[in-house]
């Protein structure tokens, strides 16, 4: 113990961490990709509907880097627990044929009561116009110095999602129906993170996050079943289709890049 303390004494200066966050950028936008982008903010769905958007806004509360607390065992994709195999790309194959995210396996190994806790938090408190694209340069709350820590997840916490536009094509035939959606609480949009802050990490790092609403945002929503018989409008609020849209938004929307600086 004495030796360890002595070594730490050689490493640290008062108030300094192992690494400093020198910058953090967050960008949020709609990016349908070539396969689903019909131009003019119109997205083609897997059911051949064409969703033209007049507005797409997401309230962003904050962005955090988190540690996993409450468990002792770390998940190693190269040596997955029994029942899991072929781990890569953020998921493993489970013996029943399903794909399971690393985060879920990690939490399972850590015990059912394992939780993620914020280590670094960037306040946002703003609304993102996803059609125009929005970006923020952020500074962490409190110190920018990172202690010796293993960061397991990044998460953007979002409030209301609201959009308006119109839907045509697919099973709607010649009908074009106005579309409006207001989901009051989107919740956490996560990305698994594997960032160990120690002496092997550069003394300064910059973070870049992208929050992308992709081309599959409206997949599996059969709009023809959602047309209001009275006014011909489509509203997803409180419907299973609204939940489907949220699932699509959760799925891989957030990505985080870490740039090590000398």
């Amino acid at each position, binding site marked *: 113990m004495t030796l360890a303390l002595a070594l730490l004494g050689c490493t640290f200066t008062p108030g300094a961490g192992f690494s400093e966050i020198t910058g953090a950028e967050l960008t949020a936008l709609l990016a349908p990709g070539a*396969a*689903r982008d019909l131009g003019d903010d119109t997205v083609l769905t*897997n059911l051949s509907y064409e969703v033209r958007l007049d507005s797409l806004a997401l309230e962003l509360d904050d962005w955090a880097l988190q540690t996993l607390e409450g468990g002792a065992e770390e998940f190693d994709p190269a040596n997955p627990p029994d029942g899991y195999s072929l781990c890569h790309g*953020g998921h493993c194959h489970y013996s029943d044929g399903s794909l399971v995210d690393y985060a879920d396996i990690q939490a399972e190994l850590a015990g059912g009561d394992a939780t993620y806790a914020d280590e670094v938090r960037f306040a946002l408190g703003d609304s993102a116009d996803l059609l125009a694209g929005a970006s923020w340069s952020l500074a962490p709350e409190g110190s920018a110095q990172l202690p010796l820590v293993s960061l397991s997840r990044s998460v953007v916490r979002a409030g209301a999602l609201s959009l308006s536009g119109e839907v045509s094509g697919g099973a709607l035939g010649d009908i074009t129906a106005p579309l409006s959606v207001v989901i009051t609480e989107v919740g956490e949009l996560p990305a698994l993170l594997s960032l160990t802050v120690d002496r092997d990490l550069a003394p300064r790092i910059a973070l870049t996050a992208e929050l992308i609403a992709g081309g599959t945002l409206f997949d599996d929503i059969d709009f023809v079943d959602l047309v209001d018989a009275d006014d011909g409008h489509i509203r997803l609020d409180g419907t299973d289709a609204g939940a489907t849209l949220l699932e699509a938004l959760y799925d*891989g929307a957030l990505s985080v890049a870490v*740039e090590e600086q000398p």
Partner: protein
Amino acid sequence: MKTHITLARILPLTLPIVLLVPACAEKTEEDLALHACSQVGEAGEPIDAAADAADAPLIALSDEPYTINLVDGGGFVTIDVPEDSLALMFTDTADVITGLDHDGDEETLAAGTPNEDCPDDLPEHWDLDLHPGEWTVAFGPSAVDSVWLMVIAGEHGEDHDEH
């Protein structure tokens, strides 16, 4: 140094491939993911997808790519699989491959994930545990006319535990 870290980008795709290599060294001494990246610039054999699954043209498990010409942004091709095989399917355009069936039975197709060695060139790939028979890949609807496709065998499924 810039390191991308996402749910889909934590571990290099090469890792499971490398793990499989010792058991099948005679088949896959080359890293399959890297090989796929090296072939992106090659158009490969052109194949016209069929509008109906029943008419889908056959393609082979191969380390050579295909260019699949789509019908109004969609269509079907069929992979003839003679024996149990673990395979990797790569494509150069995300959100175009939308379904997979085995001898007419629909299979669950999870979301594709990028090839870690060239995520911009090959934004989606799938691990496929293929059993003998005909596997039909569904494309579209999409706004593109063609896609680059490679379906490459990793090993014989029946000889291994990683199923």
